[in-house]
């Protein structure tokens, strides 16, 4: 069965804001859950060698279908204690710099990179600003656009703006059908444009943040079906569908010679939202 799907087969009866709520569902599988299902011999790598380790962003080495790969992903917490430890999946600069370090290590040893995106956004706080949150994300965008090894990005839950993009530039972008990816949270958007954060369900519709919409806009390459009512209903089945989709994507991009892959990655980014200009 093909894990990807076209527009027609997607479950269209679910509203955009319902998908936002599904993407944030507390029982939804997180990065570490997928790591357990999809990889063998996972070894976590910690610390950015500059300031600290960031538990909101998990990095490591692992085997994916027997092939050594680097894994990078946002991690939310399941209970209150974990959530605080993981800072609700909101990385600080040290998280992005750790990811950068691991990507450079993958590049050195010619290993592909697989990233899992699931964050409300990069952490907006005093310490994060002091240590250069913006710079940390910006450098990742630049480096990921030129990394010689294949990069597959999987949006598994919330794709929160720059915090998501900071590990979200790659050759193939895969997205679960109930995951969302947006420039701003629907609540934030409603508060600014409608001056009323209760209009979130309207703004969610306007922002075109669902997998279907983003597939149509060319932001996402593959949409992955979720089990019945959403990924939280069966972690195992979700993992199986994601596994299949990542494997297909990785096989496809690994075949391309590195220089050409970088060229294609550039062209893909180059044509984002240029429909009317060229």
């Amino acid at each position, binding site marked *: 069965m093909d894990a990807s799907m076209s527009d027609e087969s997607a479950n269209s009866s679910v509203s955009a804001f319902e998908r936002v709520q599904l993407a944030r569902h507390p029982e939804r599988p997180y990065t570490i859950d997928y790591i357990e299902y999809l990889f063998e011999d996972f070894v976590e790598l910690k610390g950015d060698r500059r300031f600290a380790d960031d538990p909101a962003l998990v990095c490591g080495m692992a085997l994916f279908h027997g092939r050594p790969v680097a894994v990078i992903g946002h991690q939310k917490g399941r209970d209150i204690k974990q959530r605080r430890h993981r800072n609700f999946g909101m990385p600080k600069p040290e998280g992005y710099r750790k990811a950068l370090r691991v990507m450079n290590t993958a590049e050195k040893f010619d290993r592909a990179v697989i990233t899992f995106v699931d964050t409300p956004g990069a952490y907006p706080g005093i310490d994060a600003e002091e240590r250069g949150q913006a710079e940390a994300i*910006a450098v990742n965008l*630049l480096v990921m656009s030129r990394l010689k090894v294949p990069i597959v990005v999987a949006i598994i839950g919330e794709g929160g703006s720059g915090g998501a*993009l900071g590990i979200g530039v790659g050759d193939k972008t895969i997205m679960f059908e109930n995951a969302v990816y947006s420039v701003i949270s629907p609540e934030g958007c409603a508060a600014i444009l409608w001056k009323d954060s209760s209009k979130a369900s309207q703004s969610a519709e306007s922002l*075109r943040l669902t997998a279907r919409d983003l597939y149509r806009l060319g932001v996402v390459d593959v949409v992955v079906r979720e089990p019945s009512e959403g990924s939280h209903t069966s972690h195992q089945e979700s993992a199986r569908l994601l596994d299949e989709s990542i494997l297909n994507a990785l096989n496809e991009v690994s075949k391309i010679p590195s220089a050409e892959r970088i060229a*294609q990655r550039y062209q893909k980014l*180059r044509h984002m939202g240029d429909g009317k*200009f060229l």
Partner: protein
Amino acid sequence: MSWFRKKNPRIEVVPTDERRVKTEGQFCKCPECDAAIFKRDLEESLQVCPHCSHHFRLDARSRLAMLYDEAEYEELDDEVVSSDPLHFVDTKPYTVRLEQARLSSGLPEAVINGRGRIGGHLAHVAAMDFSFMGGSMGCAVGEKITRLIERATAERGAVITISSSGGARMQEGTLSLMQMAKISAALAVLDEAHLPFISVLTDPTTGGVTASFAMLGDIIIAEPKALIGFAGPRVIEQTIRQKLPKDFQRAEFLLEHGMVDAVVDRREMRAFLIKALNFMVNPAAQVEAQTEAQSSEPQGSLTSDPDRNGHRQSPATDLKIKAQSKAQNQST
């Protein structure tokens, strides 16, 4: 009946909103030091208060004029303007907001591209304007800045961006977000060609603009007291539920934390940039970068065969290849 009769007609009272003084509109008040400033003086000092050096916001075209030699430059890519890819409607349709922004700012978009010489060096400058929808970055802004960078790469020029932006434009959704990656990818190619990129941060620079090109300069400079950050101060206050210190996220704060190279007064900006360009523009380094790229495998999009990956090349790409072969001929 009154005892005295008025011989002269009554003085007519001018309604408050029609009252005019001769100096009306000639002066403005500095929000920092409360001094009354003669507007012509303010213009001459590049919108910097002559008393306390408070930097007023400056429009994009004045920015370009202030930096280029003899204030001469070519304005480019004006045809790139925002469309409405999402058919976005909030309390007003996005198309209506765009039209209003064009009328009120007199600009086609939130960024103006220029090409000319600064201190004799070929320089491509993108100046953002906060008066156009808060300088927000949608697809057109992303496209314009990317074109500017690609053109500079092809023509071997320096790139200077002057940021003034609240971040990515909400009305173009995730496509706005993607402009961050698009511009950063173009900067990576510029970087590989050993061409200079100087980022100038002005008040305010936040969100997606800071988290992409604005923080990627070989040199990053800021105007005094400019608000610069990833998250806006209101968002941070809501998150941590504390009042922020007064000079938090100001240019001087960033300087102290090692995030910018210098805080430069606007009146010294041009001189500073010329000094930096004198250091950074080095044809020898550029030739070296080229031979390096040629000796290894082709490094990316700009030198790859367009037919093989099925994408057509932009005119800028052709230019780059021409420029390269020309440089090759010179170097051999």
